[in-house]
Structures are given as C-alpha cells and as structure tokens.
C-alpha cells in the first residue's frame, strides 16, 4: 500500500512517517507544494495525505489536481486551520476524509484503513486478526468461525482496535473516535467504559480472551500475541 504524505513541518512529518511505516505502509513524502505536485503527476498512490497549509501553495489545489486527473487515490486532508471551513471545502472538492491537527495517530490509522477499504476492495476485503475474521461490508465479525453479535459502537470500537494492532490507544483517543472530536478529556472514561466492558465480555464468551489489554491509567492495546 503506497502513500504520499504532504506535510511541510519536518518534525511532524518524521513522526507521521514513522507511525505509518509501523502500520505497514510504503510512505513517500513531499515537503512542499511543488514536490507534491510533481509526485502526484508522476506516480500513482493508493492514498494521498495532504496538509492544507503549505509554504508555497494551498493543499486544496492538490486535491483539485488529483480530482481533475481522475486519480484513483484516496485523499485524506490534514488541516491545522479551523476545521470548520476546510472540512466543508475539502469534502466538496472530493477529499474522502479529513483530520484536524492535532490528531491521534491511532485515529489516522483507523481513518486510513477505512478509506482504503472503501476505495479499493469494494466489499471483497476481509480483516483477519488471530482468531477474528471481520467482513467490513457486511459489518460481520466471526470468532473461530462463530458469528459474534455486536452493537454498532462495539463494532466500531473493534474496527478501531484492529486498525491499530499492538498500539497503545489512550482512552481519550478511543472516546474521540467513538463520539466525535468535542469530547472532554474528563468524560472519556465514562464514554468508553461500558462499551469496552461489553466488547471484552462478548469476545471472551466466544473464546477470544485477552485480546484487549488494559494499560492502567493510560488506555488499551490490542495484543498481537
């Protein structure tokens, strides 16, 4: 899976590349508009991650170019501006999704997964993780061949964990993923406690025990062992 990351801030770019490579992607980078423009004209990517505010241009113009060229690449807009305007404009231009900085790396992983799944596999895709088999198009989860019935939020939660195997997910990040970006940090535990408890119980009942580890005081982790 080949990605292009367009981000002018070196420190952030390095961290993002790091996190994305850990997630198993092939990542190319562009530090400014000109580089990015050249790359999207020359190469094919599965997804382009665009920062809107670039020193020598507007990221939205890159989105326009991609759409005008009929590119098949998914477009994920990263914005540090007030998300309210860019969201509308970016999505109008045909971006697939957007994230307002600062965002959680785990959230980026989850959005990227969902985006790539929607774009490229058209329902043919399934996710396998240890004894779990997930058909995202059908919203079905099987544990060792047995159907697992989950509520919508529990299913969301599971997909989120599956997008971030082995990653520590802070409880704030999990709460934000479930309930949108305006959740107060103080509420986050309330937000997820019941859902986490129920999801674990359901997994446990089907014999998928110990998949989700609690890192005390910080968050949760989908255990790969």
């Amino acid at each position, binding site marked *: 899976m080949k990605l292009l990351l367009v981000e002018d*801030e070196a*420190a*952030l770019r390095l*961290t*993002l590349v*790091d*996190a994305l490579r*850990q997630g198993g992607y092939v990542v190319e980078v562009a530090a400014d508009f000109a580089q990015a423009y050249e790359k999207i004209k020359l190469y094919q990517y599965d997804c382009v991650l665009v920062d809107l*505010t670039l020193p020598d241009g507007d990221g939205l113009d890159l989105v326009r170019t991609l759409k005008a060229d009929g590119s098949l690449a998914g477009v994920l807009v990263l914005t*540090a*501006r*007030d*998300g*309210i*305007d860019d*969201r*509308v*404009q970016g999505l109008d231009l045909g971006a697939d999704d957007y994230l*307002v*900085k*600062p*965002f*959680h*790396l*785990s959230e980026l992983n989850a959005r990227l997964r969902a985006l790539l799944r929607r774009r490229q596999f058209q329902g043919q895709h399934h996710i396998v993780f240890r004894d779990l088999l997930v058909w995202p198009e059908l919203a079905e989860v099987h544990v060792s061949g047995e159907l697992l019935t989950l509520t919508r*939020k529990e299913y969301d939660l599971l997909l989120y964990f599956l997008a971030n195997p082995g*990653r*520590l997910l*802070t409880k*704030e*990040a999990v*709460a934000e993923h*479930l*309930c*949108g970006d*305006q*959740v*107060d*940090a*103080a*509420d986050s535990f*309330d*937000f*997820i*406690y*019941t*859902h986490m408890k129920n999801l674990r119980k359901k997994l446990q009942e089907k014999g998928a025990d110990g998949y989700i580890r609690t*890192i*005390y*005081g*910080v*968050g949760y*982790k989908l255990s790969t062992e």
Partner: protein
Amino acid sequence: MKLLAATTRYYLRLTVGLFALASVLLYLGFDWALRNEIEELLYNRQLHLQKQVARGLPLPAPAFADNLDRSPQPRPLGFSDTLLLDPVEDEMVPYRQLTFRLQPARAGSAPEWVTLRKSLVETEDVLLVVVGVLIVVLALLLGGVVALNHWLARRIWAPFQHTLATLRGYDLQRHQPLSLPTPTIDEFGELNQALNTLSERLVRDYESLRQFTENAAHETQTPLAIIQAKLEQLLQAPALQDDEALATLVSDAWGGTQRLSRLHQSLTLLTRLENHQFAPAQAVSVQLEQVLRDRVAMLEPLLEARQVQLTLHADPPLPELTMHPGLADSLLQNLLHNAIKHNHPGGRVDVRLNRRGLEISNTGPTLTTDPAQFFERFRKHNAASDSPGLGLSIAQHICAYYGFGIAYDFTQVGNRHTLRVQFP
C-alpha cells in the same frame, strides 16, 4: 433634532424678535411724526388767527364747526387729545386740539378762549396703511429668507448626507476602504478625506488581525500537533508500557496538550465568529433535525454512562435555516453536551424542535453562579472541571451570528435548566 432645524430655529428667533421690535418702533415713529405735523399745522393756524385778530378783523367762520370752538370761559391752554362725535359715522373720533387765549384788538372787549381742532382719523388711516404695507413686506422678506436658507442648507449639506448614507452601509467584511468623493465645500472634503484614510487603516488593521488569527492558529497548532504525535509515539515504547508511573506521566502530558489544543480551537472559533469570518457563500440549507439526530447518536455512549434519558421531539413544520453546516453542528453539539454534562445520574434531557425554536431542557443541580454570567467565557460550573467553559459562549456567538435569540431559564419545579434558541 436635525442640524438644519436647529440653525433655522435660532435664525427664526432672531428675526421674529427683530421683526416685532421694528414693528413697534415703526408704529411709534410714524405716530410721533404725524402728530408733530398736526401740532405744527394747528400752531400755524393759531398764529394766523392771532395776526388777523390783532389787525382788527373778526374771527372767520369755520367751514366745519368742529374745527374752531370759541368760549368766553377760560380753558386749559396748550395741546391735548379729545374725542368728538362724528355725526356721519355716528362714532367717537379722536381729535388733536390746541387751545389759546385770544385778546381782541378793540380795547375793553373781553378775551376769548379759542380751541383749534384737527381730526386724527386720516392720520390713523395713513399710519395703518404705511405700517401694514411695511409689515407685509417684512414678513415676506422673513419667510423668503428662511425658505432660501432651508433650500441652500439642503443643497450645501447634500455631500454630508451622502457621506452619512455611505458610512451607514459600510461593511468591513468586504475588505474595501471607503472611497468618498471630494465635494466643493472644504470642510466636507476634509471630512471625507479623513474618513477615507480612517477606513483604509481599518481595513488594513482588520486584515492584519484576521491574518494574525489565522497564522496564530496555524503556527501554534502545528507545534502542538508535533508534541502530541511525539508523545503518542513515546507511549508506544514497550519500556514505557511496563512502567505504570512513567506511562501515566507521559499520558498526562499528552492529555494536557490535547486540552490546550481544544482550548485553542474554541478560542479561534470565537474570534472568527466575532470577526464575521464565515463566508456567507458556504451557508447551506441545514436540516436541523438530522444534525440533531446525528449528534445525539454520537453522544449516546455519554448518555448511557451518565444514565441520562434523552428525548427528542420534532414538531413539523421544521425550521428552514441557512447556516454554515459546521456552525450548526457546533451549536447543537455545545448545547447538547452542556445539558448532559451538567446533569445528575438518572436525569433527563428534553429536546424540542419546531419552526420557531429549539429548546433543550435538562435536570441538574441548582446553579450556584449568577445566570447572567451564563454565557461568559471561561465560566465554569465547577472550578475543578477540565472543560474550559467555552461551550455556551460559542453557542451564544453562533446564535448572535445568525440573529437567533438565546436565553437561559431555570424552574424550581424539578430543577429544570432550559436553554431556548429562537429562530428569526
């Protein structure tokens, strides 16, 4: 009061005063002159009669009896006024009379007292005509001067009215400085020039403020994003995950940056609302009920965790609002979140939407703060709360932005807090 009315009023006061004074003086002056004339006439006649009598001629018989009156009895001498009956008009008519003692030339004959009279009627008529004509002319002059003044003032003040109308319709949002013309009147020319300069400076300052807001947003969000991403990566270090104390430390630092960035986003949003920086072009027709249902669905986990019951009543016809979708979402999000946050376990939230407004009412502890400060920034219900207390301030600003009314109300029965948003 209008400037024109004010100046005209002073002008009128002066002219009416002068006009009254002039009328009185005119009357008195004419009266005095005419009487003088009559007195001189009577005196001349006295001398003439005295000369005739001295020459031994008899007193002539007067053509009109009233004009010459003789009496052997002494009378008071000199000029005086009297009223005599005019038999034709059958009314009392004023006369000026001069009485003198006449000693006939013949020795031994008794002296006589002669009274010469002259009617004042003609004099009064003349006086009336003259003063009347003069007053009419003066009045016409006064009226004409006032009208002319009015017309001139209107003409001369026209550039000022134009400037005023332009200023009233001025909108800083268009980023266009004023370009007022330079009229022929110097003072107005200077005023317009000063206003043009002022507006240029305003536009410049506004633009730099706007840019500063944008730059500040971008420039601070980026380092925050870096800190947050690095801390999140740091949290992935296996060594850290095994050390609970260390993990909590990093996690707390990470939580702090997150709060900071939230605060930052909220303040940026408030600034942009205050500066009217949401392009009207991005406003679309918003289905408020759908946004409301989406938001409620997102908040479901919090409702469950707090055991709060939320009911949603939407009574058609539903409002047709043209809003920026992001702002509509933010408004509902803040109001709903507020109603859930300041609730107690097992409490209720009732949301009512109809064409006229949106009403969100929730149970909750009695307010300890002044409801008047409800919408102020950083107004926290609980000082220890993690939330910066900007939610309601944002809601209020969004309402003000679209001309919605928003009011808070508390009823003792069931400790109900109600926030009402009224659509125009």
